[in-house]
């Protein structure tokens, strides 16, 4: 972050703190209308999400480091379509449906591996690493077959630094354009020079948005994270930046009595850095949301990114992808282990609420959600869902009204 950006955030902390002392709602900020709970529980809404969100958004599928050489591939299937991600001879990473153009058998089985060509086990049609159909056994049996027109069906596949994203929608905005302001603001975290150091999987009994909501607001810090986070961060000074396309950031300042958050809290345990660009990751907590399903907490060295995948209307798979700079000296394994454990313990606190929330939503105990000012990112998220799905496609009782347009920072 540049010095003026850091100064600006600090000024905004002050504004939030003094506002919270006066106990007044921010002048001119609209009161948020309640969000209908059906957006979390109604099968119609879930279906709309499948159609308009999961089939049309940029989804994180992996990291370039998983496919170091030409011919390295992985299969990915977390959003209802089987994707084959493969690195070509030209070093470019591409994605295809893992479906043979002949009669649709899955082209590759397993989870990952290395291959010279992509050959279907059913009848042996063979494709090169760029998806071109190069060999058809008994080709004379297919008079007039145009091999060039029968390559593998591609998916959009683009990179944010080292991170691989796919999109089924051939007309989608290019990934970097979709990220836009978010990528600009996060540029100092060097997404092109990070590697993955661990992935922790969780399966939760709740709609994917229930667990995402928990990471989009700081209002719960004192009650949910009494001993783990609350001693370090003061949520009353939270600054929220809402960016275009559903992305956003939340920066929660450290308690004023602490000059630095300290090893007990940050994932950068043991870091002695004083890189001025990263002042705020040492004295505050910065987290970001990338629409539709990534939430990360920034740090200079190690930090986690959470990806949320619906596995049903009321169940979610969460991947916690912990990344670190490629050139990061290997951490003392003991320290690395305790930081991950500490982080997992905080996660556990966040997850401890979600089953109950799902139950409350399911049984009708809560029919609409009243969001406060500190939870406005959740409303922003719903606005983006509304925009992508198209209000006209949503049953009237599940619609929300856009309120936050004027507060998006372009």
């Amino acid at each position, binding site marked *: 972050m540049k010095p003026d950006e850091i100064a600006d955030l600090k000024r905004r902390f002050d504004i939030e703190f003094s506002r919270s002392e006066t106990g007044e*709602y921010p002048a001119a900020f609209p009161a948020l209308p309640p969000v209908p709970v059906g957006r979390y529980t109604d099968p119609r809404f879930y279906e709309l999400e499948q159609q308009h969100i999961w089939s049309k958004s940029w989804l994180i599928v992996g990291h370039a480091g998983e496919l170091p050489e030409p011919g390295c591939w992985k299969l990915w299937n977390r959003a209802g379509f089987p994707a084959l991600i493969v690195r070509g001879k030209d070093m470019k990473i591409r994605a295809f449906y893992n479906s043979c153009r002949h009669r649709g058998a899955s082209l590759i089985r397993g989870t990952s591996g290395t291959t010279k060509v992509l050959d279907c086990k059913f009848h042996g049609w063979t494709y090169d690493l760029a998806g071109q159909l190069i060999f058809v056994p008994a080709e004379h049996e297919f008079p007039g077959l145009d091999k060039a027109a029968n390559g593998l069906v591609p998916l959009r596949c683009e990179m944010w630094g080292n991170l691989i994203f796919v999109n089924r929608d051939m007309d989608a905005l290019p990934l970097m354009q979709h990220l836009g302001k978010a990528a600009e603001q996060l540029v100092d975290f060097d997404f092109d020079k990070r590697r993955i150091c661990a992935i922790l999987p969780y399966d939760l009994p709740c709609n994917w948005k229930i667990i995402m909501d928990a990471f989009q607001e700081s209002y719960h810090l004192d009650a949910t994270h009494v001993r783990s986070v609350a001693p370090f961060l003061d949520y009353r000074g939270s600054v929220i930046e809402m960016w275009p396309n559903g992305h956003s950031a939340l920066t929660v300042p450290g308690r004023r009595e602490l000059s630095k958050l300290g090893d007990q809290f940050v994932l950068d345990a043991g870091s002695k850095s004083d890189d001025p660009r990263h002042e705020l990751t040492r004295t505050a907590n910065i987290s970001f949301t990338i629409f539709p399903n990534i939430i990360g907490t920034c740090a200079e060295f190690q930090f986690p990114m959470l990806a949320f995948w619906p596995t049903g209307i009321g169940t979610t798979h969460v991947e916690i992808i912990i990344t670190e700079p490629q050139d990061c000296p290997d951490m003392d394994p003991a320290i690395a282990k305790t930081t991950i454990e500490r982080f997992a313990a905080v996660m556990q606190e966040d997850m401890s609420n979600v089953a109950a929330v799902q139950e*409350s939503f399911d049984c009708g*105990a*809560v029919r609409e959600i009243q969001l406060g000012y500190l939870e406005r990112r959740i409303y922003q998220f719903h606005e983006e869902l509304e925009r992508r799905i198209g209000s006209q496609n949503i049953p009237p009782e599940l619609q929300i009204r856009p309120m936050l347009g004027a507060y998006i920072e372009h």
Partner: protein
Amino acid sequence: MNDMTKLQPMPWKTTVDESKLPPLPPIPRRRYLDEDFYQLELKHVWRKVWLLVGHETEYEKPGSYRLLDLDLAPVVVVRGKDMKIRAFLNSCQHRGATVLKEKEGCAPVMSCQYHGWTYSLEGKLVGVTQPDTFPHLNPGDYDLPELRCEQWGGLIFINFDKEAQPLREFLTKSVLDRYSPIFESPLRVVWRHAWDFNCNWKLPTDAFREAYHIETIHKKTVFQMIDCQRATTDMNHNGHDTITVPYWPKQAMQEGEWDAIPVLSKLAPLPLAATPEFTANVIEPNIFPNFSMAFQGVGFPIFSFWPVSVDRSRVEVLWLGVDWGDAPKSAEWETLIAGSSIVAEEDLGNLMSIQKSLAADPDKGIPLATKEIAIYQLHAEIDRLIGPENIAPELRVPDILRDFYA
């Protein structure tokens, strides 16, 4: 012992004239297996009728609470500052987390662990974290949703239906007249326990609605004490009934072989214990939909049955005895409860294999003996509440017992 000629005449006359009973059509197995039927039961039965959830002595002082872990909704039952016992959805009105987490305990207020909103013991929203960030919270709009909660003596019932008839009406005058002396007297919870089973909730319920199995399943236990051949059933409206099973004549009781015969106990007797009906019989009332008890001399277990999913259920046992005041709890309870648990295990041990065998051939029917008439009554009452028109024709249980209800 099996010599029928020595038996004394029965002191309690059943209200059902068995000779007039029509033949009972078999119960379709799919009623225990079908997800749609299960959903109908949840909607029209479980969300509409009074459900027993415990006894007031479990809620000692203001703030004493218990959570009910039901498939229907998360519920907390709590005693207020005014000593009244209330039931609420355990569901914070902000974003729906639980306001109490431990299974039971005593709390000064109910405080949500997600963002800290706080409710009084009477369910009023009394504290909002950073209220300045919620400009439009009208006081009163976000109190905890309260459920109907009424008592029969010390027994606590809840009802999800705001419009439900009052508890006492639901229980019917004949049930109240017959058993109120017991429930309105000072009782105390001796023991509480719960088991989960992989079977539909009606299987354990059925097991308590007939005496037909006593001679086989309980050969070494209850059968030593009571003569199931002479058991009678009388049925009330709203699905309630009582099964009366006479004791063997004194000389026939095999004292010592099964040493948990409450009738021989030295503990303080229940009200009614000295009446002819109670001295001669074990009295087993079944209250629709979900609990059964077996009165015997000094105390009794209440078994309650809960749906968890179509093929999973929970059985809770609540043992009640005459309140022993400040005196220490007698060691004799241990023996009684141990004996009664053996019986319960005999009853419940079968259940999972039954569910599996029903599922193996789901289109068959379950034939019922006249002695199992209360099972038929249970099913007929379920259909009455659901409305036969809402039930697939092949799953219906026609109401043919109407005229036999007292």
